[in-house]
């Protein structure tokens, strides 16, 4: 019989993450970010981490647990992100002074390349070619190759030791469903990781209660599940209506 992957709480969910681990964190602009697992990792204290995520954190308030906080807490050696600075020149992320001071290394990767490198790692594809970034600073010193009359960059797979995810629903064997824009990087990070830890918003379903056609991440990729308690104890995405005007 399948065993339940539910663990007792957030401390157990992040137990045993060693110094030097590479961890991917799901999430895009709030939804799908494992806020509670990040908070637990801040307390757990593993150091010398490599953190893979879309951003190091936004400039928005209220600030939620993010990669920048792990950096500020002295836990991070390197980040691999598509944003290592805010898009508005007027927003300065707390992360920026650590980067300027050389206290953290950063690999800046176009977002689609980041997603594809994670998927490749989870697909046994060691390398692939993409047209993204050709002719830019990102391509400097890099191997290129012409296919069908167009230059492409060689990109390598990006395997990770752990993926920290946030899902909406799970069954006890770890099948996951995300809700709306919460999906984002989570499924490909699950593919790329050797150990997958997911915080889950709803009560766990028994095995067999989730429609097999509606599973987003198959349970065989998932190792630890932990339930997010309702706010204020559990952290949830906040309202983020940007003032574009």
């Amino acid at each position, binding site marked *: 019989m399948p065993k339940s992957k539910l663990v007792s709480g957030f401390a157990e969910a992040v137990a045993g993450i060693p110094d030097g681990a590479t961890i991917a964190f799901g999430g895009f602009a709030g939804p799908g970010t494992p806020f509670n697992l990040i908070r637990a990792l801040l307390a757990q204290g593993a150091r010398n981490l490599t953190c893979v995520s879309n951003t190091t954190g936004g400039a928005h308030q209220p600030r939620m647990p993010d990669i920048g906080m792990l950096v500020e807490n002295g836990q991070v050696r390197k980040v691999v992100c598509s944003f290592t*600075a805010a898009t508005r020149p007027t927003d300065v992320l707390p992360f920026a002074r650590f980067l300027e001071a050389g206290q953290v290394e950063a690999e800046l990767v176009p*977002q689609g390349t980041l997603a594809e490198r994670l998927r490749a790692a989870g697909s046994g594809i060691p390398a692939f070619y993409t047209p993204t*970034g050709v002719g830019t600073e990102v391509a400097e010193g890099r191997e290129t190759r012409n296919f069908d009359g167009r230059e492409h960059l060689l990109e390598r797979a990006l395997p990770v030791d752990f993926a920290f995810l946030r899902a909406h629903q799970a069954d006890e064997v770890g099948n996951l469903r995300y809700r709306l824009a919460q999906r984002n990087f989570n499924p490909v990070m699950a593919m790329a990781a050797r150990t997958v830890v997911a915080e889950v918003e709803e009560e766990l379903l028994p095995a067999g209660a989730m429609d097999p056609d509606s599973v987003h991440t198959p349970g065989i990729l998932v190792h630890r599940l932990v339930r997010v308690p309702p706010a204020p104890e559990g952290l949830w995405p906040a309202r983020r*209506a940007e003032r574009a005007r």
Partner: protein
Amino acid sequence: MSGDAAPKGWSRQQMADRLAAEFGDGWIVNLGVGIPTLCSNADTGDRDVVFHSENGVVGYGPVLPEGQEDLHLVNAGGQNVSLRPGAAIVHHADSFALIRSGRIDATVMGAYEAAANGDFANWKVAANAKGGGIGGAMDLAACARCVFLILEHTTRRGAPRLVRRCALPVTARRVVTLIATNYGLFEPAGEGFRVKELAPGLTLDEARAATGAPLTD
């Protein structure tokens, strides 16, 4: 991208509306962070336009008023948007599969600089800056059928953003097809820009004075 010292010509929503008028029927349009997201508020009339967001939301609509937001649903700018009937969600790798495979008819992005040769720059605030914000811009710029930009015509200090060649590190080369600024609509034309339309109240001479490359009618 710029401040709130009321600029000449079009407002931000007017810039977005004007560019949205260029979207063809049946187009898939990606909207980037900043002013471009205002395009999903535009009235596209009889035209069926599907808005795509890099985070895998296919078919979204206007930003929702406070209190009606769904916290699980954001566009590329992190704004809580609505879904239109027929919407679908895909994961990030599939979202960029749509982008790189040429399924996006137009991408609308903000920029710091747009050059007459079709280059543009929107990911690094200074050539020597550490760090940057690429996001999905390089994938979109390299692969969308049309690359549209929306930006203020000048910096806060009055320096032109439409220039002959970019001084900042570029996002992609020779890809920009159309630019909306508060001054009007412009097309890169090699050594200068073609003026497609001027915003009401603006003269060609005023536009020339604020532009870093020759303008032609």
